[in-house]
């Protein structure tokens, strides 16, 4: 299978990521690896896989390939929830905060779906614009909250995803991504049907509302998990599924592992690049990804316009 060549690349990236850093590996190598390098590498892999999978589900649910979680206001809604819970109950355990964040992400995504149902489908470019502005509005509210509570720095940490602070004990929640990925794999065929649209999916015997709701709960959970542990990463959910679908077609059950793998590779790759460019200083992985991902998005836009009958 052609996808097997991804594995040596991934292994190479992991090795580079483990060997790379400001501290030398010559002393206390085992300790350094255990406490810092391995958690960091794993966090990048898990976050990338989770965001890429979330992207697949969102794209199927709104039948639009140019949308992804960060273009639906979900991270901003999640951030808003986190800010509110930080203000009301600062001492709450991480698990509790995560739940609140996931719940508010879900509400934010519900709002986006309501908007999406009003946006006509003829023009695939319209929905991402609506999503961007919707996210901007929620973001403005979050900024206002953070400003009035003097939490701007707190907000800034989440706005920009990066891995420099990841150490043992600070990323373990991301393992739930693996759990959710397994769940998605079980649901893969039903989520594929979701992409056919309400009428056809119903005709094929799918409980459309229930499946869509379930898929979105998973997306909200994935987004919240990644955001709370390492921060926001735009474009990952867009780039990985689109590249895989261009490359291998749309068999979701076969594609999901590849999408997860590619997402993991891309985020780890961005992190490695960010660490190399100005060694020993670091550029946040999300910044590197914003540049690369925006480039890919622009390319996808051209392609989408070439395929569309109008324009």
């Amino acid at each position: 299978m052609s996808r097997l060549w991804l594995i040596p690349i991934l292994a190479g990236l992991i090795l580079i990521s483990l060997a790379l850093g400001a501290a030398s590996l010559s002393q206390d190598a085992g300790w350094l690896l255990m406490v810092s390098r391995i958690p960091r590498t794993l966090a990048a892999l898990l976050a990338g896989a989770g965001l890429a999978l979330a992207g697949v589900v969102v794209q199927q649910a709104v039948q639009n390939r140019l949308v992804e979680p960060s273009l639906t206001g979900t991270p901003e809604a999640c951030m808003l929830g986190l800010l509110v819970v930080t203000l009301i109950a600062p001492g709450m355990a991480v698990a509790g905060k995560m739940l609140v964040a996931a719940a508010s992400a879900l509400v934010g995504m519900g709002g986006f779906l309501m908007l999406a149902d009003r946006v006509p489908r003829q023009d695939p470019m319209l929905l991402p614009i609506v999503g961007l502005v919707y996210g901007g509005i929620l973001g403005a509210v979050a900024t206002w909250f953070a400003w009035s509570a003097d939490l701007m720095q707190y907000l800034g940490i989440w706005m920009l995803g990066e891995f420099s602070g990841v150490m043992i004990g600070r990323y373990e929640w991301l393992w739930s991504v693996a759990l959710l990925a397994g769940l998605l794999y079980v649901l893969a065929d039903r989520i594929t049907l979701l992409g056919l649209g309400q009428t056809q999916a119903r005709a094929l015997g799918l409980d459309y509302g229930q499946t869509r709701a379930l898929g979105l709960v998973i997306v909200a959970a994935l987004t919240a998990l990644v955001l709370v542990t390492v921060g926001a990463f735009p474009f990952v959910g867009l780039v990985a599924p689109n590249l895989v679908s261009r490359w291998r077609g749309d068999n979701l059950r076969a594609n999901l592992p590849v999408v997860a793998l590619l997402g993991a590779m891309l985020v780890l790759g961005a992190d490695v690049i960010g660490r190399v460019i100005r060694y020993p200083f670091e550029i946040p992985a999300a910044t590197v990804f914003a540049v690369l991902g925006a480039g890919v998005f622009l390319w996808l836009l051209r392609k989408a316009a070439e395929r569309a009958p109008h324009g």
Partner: protein
Amino acid sequence: MADRRNLWLWLALGLVSAGFLAWQLRAPQDVILVLRGQKLLALICVGAATGAATVLFQTIAMNRLLTPGIVGFDALFVLMQTLLVAALGGVGLAQIPGTIRFGLEAAVLVGAASALFGILLRRDAGDITRMILTGVILGVLLRGLASMVQRLLDPSEFAVVQQAMFASFGRVPADQLTAAILCLGGALFVALRMAPALDVAGLGRGAARGLGLDHDRLVRVTLMLIAVLVAVSTALVGPISFLGLLAASLARQITDTHRHAVLIPAAALIGALILVAGQFIFERLLGQQSALAVVVEFLGGLLFLALVLRKVRA
């Protein structure tokens, strides 16, 4: 008729400005008046530049939903600022007098913006949604590049860039303000003299050419004007993406005309009015320094969504 409508706007702006200057004026009156006056001028400059730039941009793009901020114009500006600091160094840049620096930045920006958005408008002009989306994503790309270059800078130079990016209304240097007012006045003057030609350009490229207008040249000149206006406002306070949309939409509603001789001043006045009144309310009455940009962003975003959804229905 239309002139009288603008007269009301002039009156309103005058009243709010007077209120802004005189509200709770205490002991060292002349010092406070000078400080408040500078702030007021900066607010008016930014509001007017943004409003006028948006009307111009909407005309040449033939679309009422656009603002230069949405399609990444101000991101380009931030990137230019960063590159200038990277090229000349913080110290080198500080040695250049404010006015010359301002002119240098404006010149570089005008060139880059005309090239970039000229290509964008020409290639995608037929497909408005694609053009907006391309512009928005281009903005993300430019912002990402800017922050990447910023990270490559030395920490001390990074601080210089940050200061340039987050300049608040509070500390606008007087020489920069003078330069800004000169640029803005010049650009507005040129825009008003071009108003009849812009009216014709609003009919579309084909019709405008049929009527004997050199449409391509007009678009080039207008893009330069927009670049100057956006440069002025971004240099003074930093990016505000939806203010222009609010001002231009309100101006079109209130004046109910396509004539740019009326529309441009109206949008400029409304932009200034929003900023001055907003700053007055938030800073003086509610005691919250920085909420204004956020509120403008919020309302502007809502308006944008409403416009998109309504246009789609129609």
